[in-house]
């Protein structure tokens, strides 16, 4: 991660209120603040800069054409999930991986994840993840960015499936506690 990656993101939720009203300037600022995040997720998941560029384009076009899809809360976490789900769709549709390896995510409009960590930034998440033992952090990152199921994580790491599931749960619980502390400080 270079210095540019830590550019402070503008408040996406506020910008989205203006985008809903058709404010092209707000949309441009939203893009300036969040395109590195969307591109970064797509690049990690698709492994191809050109495809990541196309996916970034399609995510922001969707934001512009359907601004009501985001309702409130942490815009960064929301658009990260959108980028991840679109990347999974691309992996599936282009048969870049075996279908059975690709997970499905449950999208919940207005779910808690959009509201709990509204004050969270990427640096805090990086620190919280870095505080986890490798054995917990690694399957969490593989699960989120690898575009693979827990079965596939177990196969690729040679660790029993039950152990992988428990490590993911333990890691996410610790992460939750760490992040709770971060947003309340």
């Amino acid at each position, binding site marked *: 991660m270079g210095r540019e990656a830590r550019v402070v993101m503008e408040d996406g939720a506020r910008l989205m209120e203006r985008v809903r009203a058709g404010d092209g300037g707000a949309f441009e600022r939203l893009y300036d603040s969040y395109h590195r995040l969307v591109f970064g997720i797509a690049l990690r998941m698709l492994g191809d800069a050109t495809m990541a560029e196309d996916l970034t384009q399609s995510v922001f076009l969707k934001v512009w054409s359907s601004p009501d899809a985001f309702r409130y809360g942490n815009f960064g976490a929301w658009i990260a999930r959108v980028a991840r789900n*679109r990347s999974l769709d691309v992996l599936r549709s282009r048969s870049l991986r075996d279908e059975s390896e690709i997970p499905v995510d449950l999208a919940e409009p207005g779910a808690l994840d959009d509201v709990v960590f509204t004050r969270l930034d990427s640096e805090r998440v990086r620190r919280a993840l870095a505080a986890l033992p490798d054995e917990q952090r690694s399957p*969490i990152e593989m699960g*989120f960015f690898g575009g693979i199921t827990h079965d596939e994580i177990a196969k690729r790491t040679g660790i029993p499936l039950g152990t992988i599931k428990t490590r993911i749960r333990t890691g996410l619980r610790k992460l*939750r506690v760490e992040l709770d502390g971060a947003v309340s400080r």
Partner: protein
Amino acid sequence: MNGSAEHEAMLDLVAVAALGSLPTADLRIVTLHLATCAECRAEYDALRPAASAVGLIAEEPVDTLRSARMKKRLLAAIAPTANARRAASAPGGLIWASSIVAAAAVVFALVSTVQDIHLRSDLANAQRTTSQLQTRVAETQRTNENERDMLADLFAANAKRYTVADGEVVARGSHVYFALHTLPALPKGKVYQAWTLAKGAKTVAPSVTFTPNASGSAIVQLPADATALAAVALTVEPEGGSKTPTSKPSFIQPLS
């Protein structure tokens, strides 16, 4: 299930669902369970925000040229709708101005089209390939969106749930589902068939046929408006389905 090793295993699966790393079949099982288990639902609600926050670490530097190219493409793509949105809220004079700009854009596009006609023939194959890929992506996205909508319905706190012999009938808004998990194995040449009874009707109408997976689970959306139905039922029928039920129903469930 509470307190058992089986429940602990389900809590582990719930964590993987929060991360978004379950295959479809497992996600359906977890979704059904979350609808009826407060402890697991609380675990999911606690872990999902932490899992979503993981995405924030992916921010990557984008080189200046690429960043500028991407932004130019994007702003060009939204320009027509941006003009339309502005025009929709602008006084009459601005509408004229934006119309002139739009007309100029159309003329420019037409002129460009004529000039590019030779290049077009060279690019035809590439465009066809791109178009086919775009169609596949769009189809996959539609399928996944439908699947997510279905899971959201099954998951919703405001869904009506009716316990039946082999699971649940779930109704939310105009949608109705069979969420069954203990269906007996079917004899060879047989399928399960759903039936619907419309409000005020005296006879049932045939609905979808399906076969459960190896563990007896099936989630099926009935292609009917739930608000217009008085009841639903399930029978075993010959492959291809029947026009009227030919076996004793596994259940008949009124929808109140």
